[in-house]
């Protein structure tokens, strides 16, 4: 499941943000590939695509640093 999510999120980043993800564990924020504005768009895209509203009340930027971390966070939200 997490691998499928990683593929979908990688595709969303490519399609919505026009950013090619170098690797699933690359820190996209630290490397400057994603900024806060594009992260907002990406989270909204993920929610619409996966069909889940992510629990963001205690927002933790670390959950969105890499494709790997995003997939884990989304998988947890789906449980």
């Amino acid at each position, binding site marked *: 499941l997490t691998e499928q999510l990683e593929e979908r999120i990688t595709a969303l980043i490519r399609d919505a943000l026009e950013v090619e993800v170098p690797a699933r564990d690359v820190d996209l924020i630290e490397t400057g590939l994603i900024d*806060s504005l594009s*992260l*907002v*768009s990406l*989270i*909204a895209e993920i*929610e619409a695509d996966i069909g889940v509203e992510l629990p*963001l*009340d*205690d*927002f*933790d*930027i670390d959950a969105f640093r890499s494709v790997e971390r995003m997939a884990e966070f989304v998988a947890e939200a789906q449980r």
Partner: protein
Amino acid sequence: MKVFSTCPQSKDVERGEYARRVAEISRWSEKAGCEGILVYSDNGLTDPWLVSSLVLESSERLAPLVAIQPVYMHPYTAAKMVTSLALLHGRRVWLNMLAGGFKNDLIALGDETPHDERYERTTEYTQIILGLLRGETVTVEGRYYNVHNLRLTPELPPELFPGVLMSGSSPAGLQAARTLGATPVKYPKPPGEEESPEDSDFGVRVGIIARDDAGEAWRVALERFPEDREGQITHKMAMKVSDSHWHEQLSARVGEPGSESERHPYWLGPFQNYKTFCPYLVGTHERVATEIAGYMGVGAETFILDIPASEEELDHIGRVFRLARESAAA
């Protein structure tokens, strides 16, 4: 009672249209009887002093309420702006002293001063400005600023001495206002939950959408500030980095359930969707006026409105304040 509107932000208006929009909203605000108009300041906006100059040129008596964050200029320069605008336009400005702002703006400028210390700095900063504007020779060996035998030229005519507001609802913010003799301004809770500061009047920042019919008012409100998931996500991200007392207080509140006609007028929808920072009062003119009178009853004498959507909106708001005054006087 003093009512201020708010100037549009350059980030929200098409580049070639901004100056015209500022002039237009200044004229509407003056016609509606506002004392002044708040001009925002942050890293993403045009300079508030230049916008204030445009406000003065576009109106006959409306006073710009200039948002001043110490990181942007030395207090001498801020005082020089006030006295220069007075000389050029023969008009008074108000000062809206800030200690906070967007945290990332401050970090980008190399300023990581903690929350309460920022209020101490703003206090010291404002004391220098006000001393200079009073025509004093100012010497301060402070924690944040050092000036020696500093004087301001041209002198400010006493009748153009600025009114001073202080944004912030934390204990540190209230203490700073008290020290400066400034009016503290807060993003309020509903009137029934607000308490008057011990020793002064205060101001509230609140948006208003009022119509003859509550359903119509809510229709307008929801059309202007629709649910927006990207806005909600941005709000949650912003709350995570903010150290603002009022951000935390307002975010802890949840939306009121109920149908449009029975909803309580106090509404945080625009705040929660990251469209504006102030709460809104929505409903009939009479119902909203009751809420405004409630704030007046606990000592609010200054009201800072949100950016007006239209001249018609200011007409509705004017009606609300007339009713609130009548209610408070009765």
